[in-house]
């Protein structure tokens, strides 16, 4: 495992504590919501939603508001609109998602331009798009935790109906499940999750936190609960590990720390590669065993 931070200032440092807290909330929520998102094959929608939320984040910087509120407002509005459009055809939905993503990022470009030319917040562009965990204002913590709790409660409520819907929508309807209510609730949880992720690793990299741990866990797990547990472990491990490494990096290149987001995303990518390797080796072994038995 990773060595504990060598500098005793680590735990005493307020920005570090805020980063650890908000990062943990984001990682936990993203792991849980991400599993549902990957199972519903909505990774692209999740990515688009995170990207589009950057417009809200940059507007918040411009107006001097809580950036989490900006991310959240935009993500929830767009998720609601996409669900309201109720497009069943997968290809059409993909197209609409792509178009909305482009439009959202276009708006972000404009708002970040204003941020840079008119606003007082320097570095807003990097913070919004790629995250800046050590500069998260401590005032955000209560809202971040409330958002995290809301997303976890929503995910818990639709736990079983969502699994049946992921198997087949018709199967779910025949069982008396209101699939549309499940979809809407999941969309809301997704909006909450990506806004937290955008706040920590940035809108562009939010996908990594949302999809990466879930994708790795779903390859390895045999049961839904196992998948959730593994995804949480990977997400939390990568987030905290990334914060520690970024803190340490101040000493590698004196005076200039490396971005936290880089470390988090790299650790998640490594976990995904490892899970792919383990699951493919597992399946080859199992296939060989089955052939041997002649079953």
């Amino acid at each position, binding site marked *: 495992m990773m060595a504990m931070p060598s500098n005793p200032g680590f735990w005493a440092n307020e920005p570090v504590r805020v980063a650890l807290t908000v990062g943990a909330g984001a990682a936990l929520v993203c792991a849980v919501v991400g599993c549902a998102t*990957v*199972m519903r*094959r909505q990774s692209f929608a999740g990515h688009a939603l995170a990207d589009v939320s950057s417009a809200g984040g940059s507007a918040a910087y411009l107006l001097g508001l809580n950036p989490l509120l900006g991310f959240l407002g935009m993500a929830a509005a767009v998720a609601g609109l996409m669900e309201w459009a109720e497009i069943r055809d997968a290809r059409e939905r993909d197209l609409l998602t792509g178009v909305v993503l482009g439009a959202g990022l276009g708006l972000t470009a404009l708002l970040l331009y204003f941020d840079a030319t008119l606003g007082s917040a320097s570095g807003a562009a990097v913070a919004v798009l790629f995250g800046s965990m050590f500069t998260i204002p401590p005032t955000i913590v209560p809202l971040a935790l409330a958002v995290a709790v809301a997303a976890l409660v929503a995910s*818990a*409520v*639709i*736990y*079983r*109906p969502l*699994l*049946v819907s*992921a*198997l*087949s929508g*018709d*199967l*779910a*309807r*025949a*069982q*008396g*499940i209101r699939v549309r209510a499940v979809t809407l609730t999941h969309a809301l949880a997704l909006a909450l999750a990506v806004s937290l992720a955008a706040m920590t690793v940035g809108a562009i990299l939010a996908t990594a936190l949302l999809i990466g741990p879930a994708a790795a866990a*779903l390859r390895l*797990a*045999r*049961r*839904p*609960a*196992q*998948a959730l547990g593994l995804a949480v472990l990977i997400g939390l491990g990568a987030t905290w590990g990334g914060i520690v490494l970024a803190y340490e990096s101040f000493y590698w290149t004196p005076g200039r720390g490396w971005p936290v987001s880089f470390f988090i995303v790299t650790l998640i990518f490594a976990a995904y590669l490892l899970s792919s390797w383990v699951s493919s080796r597992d399946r080859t072994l199992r296939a060989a065993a089955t052939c041997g038995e002649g079953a």
Partner: protein
Amino acid sequence: MSPASAALTVERACVGLGGRQILREVSFTLAPGEFCGLIGSNGSGKTTLLRAILGFVRLDSGHIRLPDGAAGGRIGYVPQKIALDPGLPLRARDVVALGLDGARLGPALPSRRRSEQVEQMLRAVGAQGFADQRVGLLSGGQQQRVLVAHALVRRPRLLLLDEPLANLDVRSAAEIVALLRRLSREYGAAVLLSAHDMNPLLPAMDRIVYLAHGSAVAGRAEEVVRTEVLSELYGYHVDVVRVHGRVVVVAAEASDQIRAAVARDPIHTAPVP
């Protein structure tokens, strides 16, 4: 049979979709525990009829009656050509458990009663051997068994299966038919199973609903699968022929008849099966 005691009553059901008449005055009744084949070629309206019974498709006229309490998830259903996603972390056992209480909110609490019910259902469909494998990685026949267990574990009084034999080899198809027939007796559930080929079902069927161009005749197989009856249903002459123990329905003068039929009804160009 009085509609009150029937597992399913369909009365003069009509469905039109996009200006096309899919079902015309379809009527039949199923008794509890009865095993019924819903036979017809592609496009004859089988899937629409099943979806109408489930309430997914609205009737333009007519009625579909289910026993009290059968609405809201009390019908067991196995959809057509379902290929379970190998990416889902669900074992066969989990899918059956979701059939039991998947509509409830929140995660399931561990319960001995629940796992016993699931275990019993897995045994009933012969799925113990692969109960702990990921469903998406099972063969078509194994997935079919798991889905039957998923549908039956709630003890529905009516089980609908849409083309469950379509992707199975002859032996697996025969096994599934025998299994469904046995379970329909044991569980007292009426089974309505759609298929384009009636032959695998002939030894098991109590009753047949034969669909052609949206119209249906229903009754016992020996009453329905006859040259006069089916010719009247199709609206042109067909022969019911028995070859090597198999029943085949052929149009007598296929090309003329089909040309005439196409002229009458340009949409329904489906030939006889």
